[in-house]
């Protein structure tokens, strides 16, 4: 890895300290549950006992009579709740009390009667003709039509193939979010104004959802009330204890607000670990039937896949179970993805929407093809990946990608782990200690690197020439820091001269969009650049004005005179403004940098506020600087290339897998905030290892109860599992054609390449494990020992 990033830049790419670093190490970074209000109450949720049932009656009298209980609400009062239970622990009621223990005792006193129905837990059972209906779709448990992508002619493509592989995989495991911070909201009211703090990835999204929920729920109140205006919903966020795709919304905001309204006190509503695992979303379990055709030299002629995705109680499908279409060059492609409804918690984004599963399923095809063709897996990838440059296009619609670092990432990962020297055929290398050696490599290009969404940034210049900005997004890694770096670089201030005034505050910040889908740095960075250019222009006009005696380039005065002259003095042209530059706290003439002024001097010459306003559409450049995918299918998207490689040792007697070496490489376009970037990269090993080796939701097949809902059963790697000295990262910069300063989004590809572990384990044992998790038991069974 290079020693320095941001070549030629003063702020971007450097190790800029996090704005809240001091707060964090002192424990003063505020999370939702830390918000204290006098007399605050504590809330708990009562979940359904049954996976499929209709509530026939509910009696809360005893709970309400318990000393210390201040409010009880039921599904009848919460517009987003229902009397139809579709999974165990689906919300039924909620209690607010003087302490957590009292709230939990009160839950036991709520009497609920159910009409219990037969649930369907297993997705294969759900798909069978005549299976009991899960209640998600009318008359079926499978989405009526598949999500389909087709281009070219797969039938023709298969006739051109020398080799055709056709197989069905097992399931890539479903697993749950299990962040240390669950869903937590703290709410209170002042009159008809609702105030709420919550962990979030989308403050404005939470606010809008809460407003809609309150409007609908207040109609159910006694007496009916509402509607709830949007300007009377005040949503705040500072700390979020891990989003990962689960906190784009929160099912706790609405019941928390309603409890608080009913009790007349602030309430912190916090999910227990058991409730959290259900009311959040789950990584889709998915399996695939594939047919892949190729020439003997590895050229792909046709790829046809059918994927079944367990959507839980929303029956959704993994929209990206076919990500290889963005990566593999193949003119003929057909993909059908079916969503299956089951009586379990809903499926949704988990560090991407289905990418980890998609990666496993895609790589199984590729690894098997490599063996069949007797081609080294690295060579096969080199052969089939989309080219860089002119050939780097979306094969479905022909539009170009702005960036794609998959090839340099692949080569770098191979180099760093020594892949070519260490590769061996599957099941052929035993280490001196008797363990089986395996090596795996994986690379992909992710079209998530710059998605859309409204973003706005506001900058206030202070009288001393420093700057404050507000950003409407939550503090996910890379957000405020990346925007701050863009602002400092563009205005020409040092990083320390720019501070984040507030974030996640929907009262004072502009719309911040979603901090998901790897969009934060690029989309908010784009808005930041527009806002900063707005400020830069205002400052330059003054700095170059002859009237100020500073850089003396044009006649236009700092501010319009009063009265205006008959012929107003024109603004300086873009060409004139380009005579100036700003860097490291100074504004100067490009032709003679010794002629300079400070931002403070410029501000002293201005009597009106200097405010920068930025949204993604740049009015000066007349283009969307935030990603190109302003509308879906727009003129090109950003694509983030990533690769990883891992060496493992598998104990054939215990099935235990040890990571010997791991390499994670990613193309950032441009590294914006080095500390944040490294944090994303080092996380890859742990996240991917967890997914492949440990994580699997286990359900009682009869009752639908989720058996593991804590950090013991849903095992999370500890520091003892991660070989820090073997966790090697590299960050490449291919300079994106459109993103601010050349960056694009990176969060998902940095951690979503878990299939590399399966590739390595299969290489070690010489058998095909075609499902996850790859637990010791799975490995031993594959070796014929279990």
């Amino acid at each position: 890895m290079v020693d320095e990033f941001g070549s030629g830049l003063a702020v971007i790419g450097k190790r800029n300290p996090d704005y809240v670093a001091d707060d964090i190490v002192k424990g003063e970074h505020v999370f939702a549950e830390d918000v204290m209000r006098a007399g605050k109450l504590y809330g708990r949720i009562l979940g359904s006992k049954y996976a499929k049932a209709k509530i026939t009656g509910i009696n809360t009298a005893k709970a309400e009579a318990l000393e210390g209980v201040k409010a009880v609400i039921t599904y009848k009062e919460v517009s987003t709740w229902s009397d139809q239970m579709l999974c165990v622990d689906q919300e039924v009621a909620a209690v607010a009390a003087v302490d957590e223990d009292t709230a939990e005792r009160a839950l036991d006193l709520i009497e609920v009667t159910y009409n219990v129905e037969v649930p369907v837990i297993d997705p294969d059972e759900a798909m069978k003709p005549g299976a009991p209906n899960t209640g998600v779709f009318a008359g079926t448990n499978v989405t009526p039509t598949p999500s389909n992508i087709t281009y070219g002619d797969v039938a023709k493509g298969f006739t051109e193939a020398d080799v055709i592989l056709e197989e069905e995989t097992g399931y890539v495991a479903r697993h749950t979010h299990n962040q240390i911070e669950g869903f937590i909201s703290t709410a209170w009211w002042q009159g008809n104004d609702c105030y709420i703090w919550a962990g979030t990835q989308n403050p404005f999204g939470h606010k809008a959802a809460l407003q809609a929920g309150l409007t609908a729920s207040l109609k159910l109140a006694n007496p009916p009330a509402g509607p709830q205006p949007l300007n009377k919903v005040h949503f705040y966020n500072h700390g979020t204890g891990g989003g990962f795709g689960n906190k784009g919304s929160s099912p706790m905001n609405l019941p928390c607000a309603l409890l608080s309204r009913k009790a007349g006190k602030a309430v912190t509503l916090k999910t227990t670990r058991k409730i959290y695992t259900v009311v959040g979303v789950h990584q889709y379990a998915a399996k695939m039937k594939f047919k892949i055709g190729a020439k003997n030299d590895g050229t792909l002629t046709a790829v046809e896949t059918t994927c079944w995705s367990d959507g839980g109680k929303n029956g959704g499908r993994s929209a990206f179970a076919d990500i290889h279409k963005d990566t593999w060059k193949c003119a003929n492609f057909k993909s059908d993805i079916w969503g299956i409804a089951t009586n379990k918690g809903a499926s949704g984004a988990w560090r991407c929407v289905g990418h980890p599963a998609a990666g496993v399923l895609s790589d199984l095809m590729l690894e098997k093809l490599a063996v069949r063709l007797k081609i080294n897996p690295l060579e096969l990838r080199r052969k089939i990946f989309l080219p860089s440059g002119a050939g780097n296009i979306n094969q479905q619609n022909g539009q170009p990608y702005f960036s794609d670092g998959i090839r340099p990432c692949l080569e770098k990962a191979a180099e760093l782990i020594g892949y070519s020297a260490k590769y061996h055929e599957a099941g052929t290398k035993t280490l001196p200690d008797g363990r089986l050696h395996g090596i795996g490599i994986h690379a992909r290009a992710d079209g998530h690197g710059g998605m859309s969404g409204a973003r706005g940034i506001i900058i206030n210049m202070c009288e001393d020439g420093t700057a404050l900005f507000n950003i409407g997004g939550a503090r996910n890694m890379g957000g405020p820091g990346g925007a701050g770096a863009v602002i400092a670089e563009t205005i020409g201030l040092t990083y320390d001269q720019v501070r984040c005034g507030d974030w996640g505050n929907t009262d004072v910040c502009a719309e911040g969009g979603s901090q998901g889908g790897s969009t934060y740095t690029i989309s908010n960075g784009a808005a930041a650049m527009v806002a900063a250019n707005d400020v830069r222009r205002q400052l330059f006009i003054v700095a170059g004005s002859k009237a100020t005696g500073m850089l003396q380039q044009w006649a236009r005065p700092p501010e319009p005179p009063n009265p205006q002259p008959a012929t107003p003095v024109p603004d300086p042209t873009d060409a004139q403004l380009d005579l100036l530059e700003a860097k490291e706290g100074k504004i100067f003439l490009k032709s003679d940098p010794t002629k300079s002024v400070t931002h403070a001097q410029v501000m002293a010459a201005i009597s009106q506020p200097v405010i920068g306003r930025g949204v993604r559409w740049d009015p000066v450049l007349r283009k969307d600087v935030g990603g190109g995918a302003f509308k879906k299918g727009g003129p090109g998207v950003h694509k983030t290339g990533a690769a990883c490689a891992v060496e493992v040792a598998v104990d054939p007697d215990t099935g235990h897998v040890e990571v010997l070496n791991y390499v994670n490489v990613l193309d950032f376009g441009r590294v914006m905030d080095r500390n944040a970037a490294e944090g994303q990269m080092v996380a890859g090993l742990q996240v991917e290892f967890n997914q492949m080796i440990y994580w699997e939701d286990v359900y009682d097949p009869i009752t639908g109860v989720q058996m593991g809902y804590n950090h013991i059963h849903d095992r999370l790697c500890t520091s003892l599992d991660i070989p820090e000295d073997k966790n090697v990262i590299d960050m490449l910069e291919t300079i994106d054609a459109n993103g601010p300063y050349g960056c694009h989004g990176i969060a998902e590809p940095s951690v979503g390449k878990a299939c590399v572990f399966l590739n390595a384990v299969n290489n070690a044992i010489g058998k095909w494990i075609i499902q996850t998790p790859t637990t010791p038991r799975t490995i031993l069974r594959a070796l014929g020992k279990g």
Partner: protein
Amino acid sequence: MAEVEKKDRKSGISRRDFIKGTGLAVGGVAISSTVLGVACKTTTPTPGANTTPPVSTNTTPVKPPPVTTVVKAPEGVVTLNVNGQKVVMEVKPEWSLAFVLREKLGLVALKVGCDRAECGACNILVDGKQHLACSMMAIESEGRTIVTLEGLASGPNLHPVQKLFLDNSTFQCGYCTPGMIISAVALLTKTPKPTLDQARLAVAGNLCYCGDYTRIVNTIVKGI
């Protein structure tokens, strides 16, 4: 106070039975955070300007004060020694130390991530050793010397371990960081220059979902 007994759904034993079995009684509730002198956050906080904090020059490990004879207080009333100050307060027997420290004394740095001793986010120092506050009862904590993250700094001066984490940007979301720092303090107080294995073991009980173990362990190895 009306008492309502409700059996735990799983074990058939109520928490109240368990506490009674250990000889403690039900008490009332009182809050005396002002005795502690700790500012409780009662209004919506806003982020302040971030300035580089001064560094504490005190690197001498702080020894806990000697344990004194505990005089049994009236039932439900405990005297807690928290961050060098005595707090006299009434607690309910079912309140965990984590709940009391956070919700009654405003010491919100520790987080209750799991409430079952799995995640380490509620890590504090008790008599100089790490303990999980979610699994200690407040009413049993009398006579113990309790130090939370808030008690590490000396006025405006960060503890050397806090400064170590700050200087090395050793956090991501920050939720597990208080517990991590406490674990690091416990190690580095005794072993200022630990090995990689010692650092790894020291935080083995602290879960980090963001996956920052590599940076955390490599930072701790730098020592103080």
